[in-house]
């Protein structure tokens, strides 16, 4: 999967994961890795950007093992942003899929 394509979707995936449950950095990275192969280095800057843009909020919570962890949670703005991104993605993927299907049908007919 190309880097550009991944970058666009990554934001949406991150927001969706966090909207289910508040997550700390490492946990979030491993969750995202289950969906797409992601470079860990890009994850923290992304989280930082989302936080700076006020889509995410952070708070510290003690953990039973080791130092306290920085958790991310969705802000109200983030929820709106997530919904917009999700709708955009749905429409985008739908039209792309439709297009691909039509193309393939045309190809089949031509054969």
């Amino acid at each position, binding site marked *: 999967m190309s880097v550009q394509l991944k970058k666009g979707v990554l934001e949406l995936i991150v927001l969706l994961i966090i909207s289910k449950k508040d997550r700390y950095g490492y946990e979030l990275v491993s969750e995202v890795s289950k969906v797409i192969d992601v*470079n860990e*280095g890009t994850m923290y800057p992304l989280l*930082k950007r989302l936080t700076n843009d006020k889509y995410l909020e952070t708070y510290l919570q003690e953990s039973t093992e*080791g130092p306290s962890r920085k958790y991310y949670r969705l802000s109200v703005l983030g929820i709106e942003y997530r919904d917009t991104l999700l709708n955009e993605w749905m429409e985008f993927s739908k039209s792309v899929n439709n297009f691909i299907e039509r193309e393939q049908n045309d190809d089949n007919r031509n054969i």
Partner: protein
Amino acid sequence: MTIETFKQELNQRLHVLNEKERTEIISEYVDHITMKMEDGKSEEEAIADFGNIDDLCKEILESYHVNTEYSKAKKTFDEYVSDFAEWISSTAEKVTQMNQKDLVKLILEFLALIVILFILSGVINLIGNMIYSFFGFLPYMFRNPIYTIINIIVGLFNAIFVLYVLYVFFSKKFESNEGSPLRRNSKEKVVYVNKPIEKSMNPSFVEVPKTTKDFSLDISPVFHLLGKIIGILILIPMGLVTLGLIVVFGIIGSLYIGHAMILGPVIILLGCMIIAIAVTSSFGSFIFRKKEKEVKMHEETLD
């Protein structure tokens, strides 16, 4: 790469961000690495998973909407000059914000430092002369160039030593409590860096080693003592000057009744007197402050 070098690299490359932000970012990365190591990866592997450190830092800076071309470029001469100007102005700002006692203390410590430097440079000159005397067996013709070379080397060494000590002195005085003034100023250049961070986050921050150098030996008592001696040496002539000025002022004042032309010198004298009294009193209060405190404490314990 080890965690320590990784931390240092990040710290260095993200220098445009303010210290709070940097410690926050670095502590998050370090947490990630340690958690990865708990899951069975080696330190090397865990850090290598972040990919190229240049790209990583570029991406971090981009998330602050920092123009990464700026931070990637090596500092130009102009930037050094502007940095220096900023440093001067922020130092001047701090000096003006100081209260009188701190200012006097600073001046006295500075004088003490100069005395120490003077003694040390005498020692360095002595060493230079000793080296020169080793060449005494040579004829004058050869000795002369060697003498010149030694002189130049000793002079350079002295200059560098003095500059270094002064630099350490001032950076210790002005930068140790609030981080580098350059860094504080550079915040203004960068959008979004200034965002307040929740105070509750502070406890988890990993302490990043401070870059400012400290004196390895604590010689502040020596400074203090020397400062006081110099203070007394200044105080005595200043007191006499004040006394003399008052006498002269009195004489001129009595003459003034008949001669309106003396008004100028009288005003100048008055100004000199006020300055002399101010300096004397502030030096005096600095030198005798501690004793007063001790006396007061003694009285309190007696009560």
